[in-house]
């Protein structure tokens, strides 16, 4: 199980390559990559702040829940922090399980947590200045499905 934060841009494909190798008993690997949108042409730059150590530990508690609940063989989470330009990946989640339903559901569950309650503080800098962002009503509704 790997849970990491990074200030540098990353390639989700390289992470999937590493994650999927050598798995003779794993039938299913699901991944999710969240990408910073340009928001219809507005050149918004995201700035994500974490509390190093605390943030990984809190994510780790939910990851342990996911491993137990969905019977995962493994999981990996990488989250960008700092300034993120449009088109750059923000978050990558990979889950490995015996069968695909568990892999999909665990990946979905982890993303709902990461987007709604994980210890990050998010600022958007656009042409009209900057603002701190709260989870959307949809993020909360997604989280409440579990």
């Amino acid at each position, binding site marked *: 199980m790997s849970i990491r934060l990074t200030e540098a841009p990353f390639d989700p494909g390289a992470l999937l390559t590493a994650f999927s190798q050598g798995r003779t008993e794993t039938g299913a690997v699901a991944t999710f990559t969240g990408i910073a949108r340009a928001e219809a042409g507005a050149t918004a730059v995201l700035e994500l702040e974490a509390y190093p150590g605390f943030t990984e530990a809190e994510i780790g508690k939910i990851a342990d829940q996911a491993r137990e609940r969905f019977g995962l063989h493994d999981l990996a989470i990488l989250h960008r922090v700092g300034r993120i330009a449009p088109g750059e990946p923000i978050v990558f989640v990979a889950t490995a399980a015996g069968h695909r339903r568990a892999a999909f559901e665990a990946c979905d569950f982890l993303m709902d947590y*990461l987007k709604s309650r*994980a210890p990050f*503080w998010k*600022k958007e800098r656009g042409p009209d200045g900057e603002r*701190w962002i709260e989870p959307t009503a949809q993020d909360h509704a997604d989280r409440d499905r579990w």
Partner: protein
Amino acid sequence: MARVLLFGPLRDLAGWRERRIDAASVAVLRSVLAAEDAALGAALGGKGVQVAVDQAVVRGDVALGADSEVAFLPPMSGG
């Protein structure tokens, strides 16, 4: 001297991210901060602001040691 950390909007409001402050407890620390910056003092007691001591969330007052790390965590936005 506790190491005090502010995150997100609290950092912007205070104009600093990290300071060393002498305080025997979280309650004393809140008083010290409110005395020098009333707006920050109010914000630290605002809705949804959590306090972590040595990276564990605490409720109510907690004694601080010489090397304690105290973090004020405004509502988390998710990633």
